[in-house]
Structures are given as C-alpha cells and as structure tokens.
C-alpha cells in the first residue's frame, strides 16, 4: 500500500515503523544519548526510536527540540525517518537541520508498529511493504 502525503524534507529511508498516538517532545521527552523515549506516561516510554521510522500525530513542547534532533543525528541515535499527520515547526525545522526524511498529511492509522515501510521525503509518499 502506498500512501500519498506532503514532502517536508527530502531523502528516502526504509525501516521498521514505530507508531504512537501521542505527540512527541524531543526536548526533555527523548534522551538523545540512548535514543529512548523518556517522557513519563508516554505510550513509547522506554522504547528506542533509533533507526526506525517514527510515526506520530504531531510534535509538541519546546523549540529546543529541533536541536535535540540534530544532536541525535550526530550521535547516530536519530530515527531513520519521520511520518506525521500534521507537521509542526519544531519537527519540521529539526528534520531539515538534521537531514531526516519527513512526510506529513498521512493517516497514521494505516501504519502498524513493526511493519517495514519506505518513506520517500522527496516525493511525499509512504509505502507499506
């Protein structure tokens, strides 16, 4: 199945999806050293997002989160790609400065954790294998 969305940042990544219905705050909500979600009570608390396609509705929290994403990219703990329902400026800017492929305007109910998916940030598509 191929889903058509909107391109946010270019690049193609193929990886396992990790899906949540909760918003994500990279600043304070994700540990850039381990790549794990640390926000207390978050659906993904304790799980690693490193190397996966991170699928969530939208970003939240401090604008410093863009820098946290950049830090993760440099430390090789970043997600391989990001898929959102509706992008916000923190995640968009984070993807651009960290060069993480990103697509939004996707109905994330179509994607399940563990599925292999291909995110094409240059075309704005998400393919479920």
């Amino acid at each position, binding site marked *: 199945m191929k889903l058509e969305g909107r391109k946010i940042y270019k690049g193609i990544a193929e990886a396992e999806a990790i899906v949540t219905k909760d918003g994500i705050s990279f600043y304070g909500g994700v540990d850039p050293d381990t790549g794990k979600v640390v926000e207390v009570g978050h659906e993904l608390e304790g799980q690693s997002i490193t190397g996966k396609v991170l699928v969530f509705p939208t970003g939240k929290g401090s*604008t410093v989160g*863009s*820098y946290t994403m950049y830090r993760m990219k440099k430390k090789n703990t970043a997600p391989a790609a990001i898929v959102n329902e509706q992008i916000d400026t923190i995640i*968009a*800017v984070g993807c*651009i*400065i960290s060069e993480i492929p990103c697509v939004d305007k996707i109905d994330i109910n179509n994607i399940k954790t563990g599925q292999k998916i291909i995110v094409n940030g240059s075309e704005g598509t998400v393919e479920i294998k």
Partner: protein
Amino acid sequence: MRLKLTSEEKDMLDGKQGRSTQKSMEILTTLGEIFDAECMIEVYSVQIAGVSYANLGEAGLEFLSEMAEDGKVRVLTTLNPAGMDRENWQALGIEKEFAVNQNRAIDTFAKMGIITTCSCTPYLIGNAPHFGQHIAWAESSAVCYSNSVIGARTNREGGPSALAAALTGKTPKYGYHLDKNRHGQVLIEVKVPVKGTDEFGVLGKIIGDKLVELGKKIPYITGISSATVEELKSFCASVATYGGTALFHMEGITPEYNMYPKPRDNIFEINQDNLNKTRSELIDDDIEIDFVSIGCPHASIHEIATIASLLKGEKVKKEFWITTARPTKRIADEAGYSKIIEDAGAKFAADTCCVVAPIKGRFKGIMVDSAKACYYGRAKNKFKVKIGTIEECVKEATI
C-alpha cells in the same frame, strides 16, 4: 508548490550563496510551504533566542558552529539573554565550566555578525523597528511587544528559523505578516483600574489563561486608560507566557486598535475579584524569600532609576539581582544609579535573567514584580514565588 521564489532566493536554495544560506533557505521555504505562504519578504531585523548554554546544550552549539562556518547575517540581528553576566559571572555564582561553554556560544553568534546584546528587550537598545515593518523575532515577550505596541509584524520564530531569517534577510509571508491574521478574536473589557508592572503581569495571566481555555490567540482589550512602556513590557511577557499570545490590541494604547473591527462574540469582563484571585495564584503558601529579582523582561533605565531612589542609603539583606541589558547598565553607570544600587549590596546581572541562568534549586523563594518570572521560577527553577510591586520587592530585599 504555491510559494514563489525570486531568482535570488532560488540561488540561495540551490546553494549558490554557500551552505549556511542554503540550509537557511531550506528552513524558510519549508515553513513557507507548511503555512501556505505565497512568497518571501525582506525583514528589517532579527532577534535570536536560544542563547543560554543551559537551553542550547552541545546539540545547539554544534548546529550554530556549522552555520557559522560560512554564514553571515544580512540584516540587523540582536541576541536574547545568555545564561550569565559576561563580565560579572563569578560574583553571581556561575560555574566556570558553564561560563566557558556560554562564551563559546556567544562567540559563535558573534562570528556570524550578530550583535551580542544579550537582551530580551531589543526594542529598548537599538533594535527598534517602526510601525508596519516586517521583522523575524524569537523571544516571545519581544514578539508580543513589537507586534502589539510598535505595530511591526513578526511570527513567533524559534531559534533556527530566526537565524535562517538573519542569514538570508528573508522570511516567508504568512501568519502575522498578513492583515487578515491580525484581527482581534476575543473582547476583554477591563472594568477596574490596572497599575504597576506587577498588576499588568497579573492582567496578562488572566487574559492568557482565558485565551488558552478558548483556544484563541488575539485579545482586543478595552478599559485601560494609560500604560507605561514598563507596564506594557510586563504585560507582553505575561500574556505570551500564559497564553502563547503574539499580538493584542488595546483600545487607545496600541497603534492598530482601530484598524480592525472589535470582536462581537467571546466577550469577557475583568473585575477586581479576577485581579485578586489571580494575584493570589502568583503567591505561594509558606514562602520563605531568600532571593529578589527585578528585570523580567530586562529592566529599563526608568526602572533602574526607581530602584536606585528606593535603595538610596539602604542595605539589602537578601540576594537581590537587577537583570538588564548591558547598554542599559552602562547608562545606569554614568547616571550614578549603579553605584547607589551596588553600595546597597544589590547586584546587577546584565546579559542574563532569572529565566535562563542556571540557578535551579539555588534559592528557596523568589520575589519578583513579573508574572512571567513567577512561571519560570516555579517550572524551571523549582522556587516558591511571590509577586509584588517594584517597591514591595525592594523593601523585601532590605528586611
């Protein structure tokens, strides 16, 4: 793609003007597309936030260093407060390791041609746009002040998007740059006299909380007969902190109040009971005050003159910081205010403030005249807080 770029902007995006300019244009065009901008516009000036090393961390600093490799600002660009006074950090109890890292960050900004003012009140110290000018500012209180009190036009930028505007001189034309997005949405009728920086801060919290509850952003406020610059800067900081507000109209005070119709629905009154109740929310029970601070947003020369007149011949018995911009401190030095204040035992903390300095847990209770400082005093620094007038704050420091 709806966003139309000029040939110069395309060159920037294609990397013909260097890597930092290209990265900046990628940020700006992506934001432009997300928010459905038709074109880019030139900005008069930029205010950059995300300066304190406590917020930036190594991650932010790495990004800035990469941008500074070939990036130079194209417009007047000033800087938000840092995590410490650049000259007096040791006396204020800042660790050396932090100071070294903070200076690395400031030097990186300077390398790009940014004027390292380190202040949240750029409009008081030379970054002063005029009515209708397009700008790209971060720092929520200054965004609110420039949009509302000056009538300049900016969105609430984050650190990277403000830097991108500085390195290209452009911003995408959406949001508050357009007339159609500047209309008041909620009518707030203030039925009680409001006076002083503390009370304007209380008013900002009432309105900010109400806006969040309604899911609205732009209040149209009536019933304020007069307001000083200092009262407005306190109000801006508060309504931006509690309501995420970037723009308000105040009848008879702000320049755009009669450019758009008054909101006809969503009408709310504010009376003395509202002021009392919200003020009590900004005073913690069982507070033991060991720290007093004035200057959130940064103290103006008028406020410093007031503090000097109150402290003349007095001795403070508690840690007392006056946070301000270094250029304002220099005026205070020449006018003799600094000597009076320092002779009384109070300290200037220029370039920094209680929101961004690394002082978490260092004090038990803080007294301030700012509703914004109350929010961050609690949330970030884990202090108990108490709001009061500037006179009450100075008195508290001396007992």
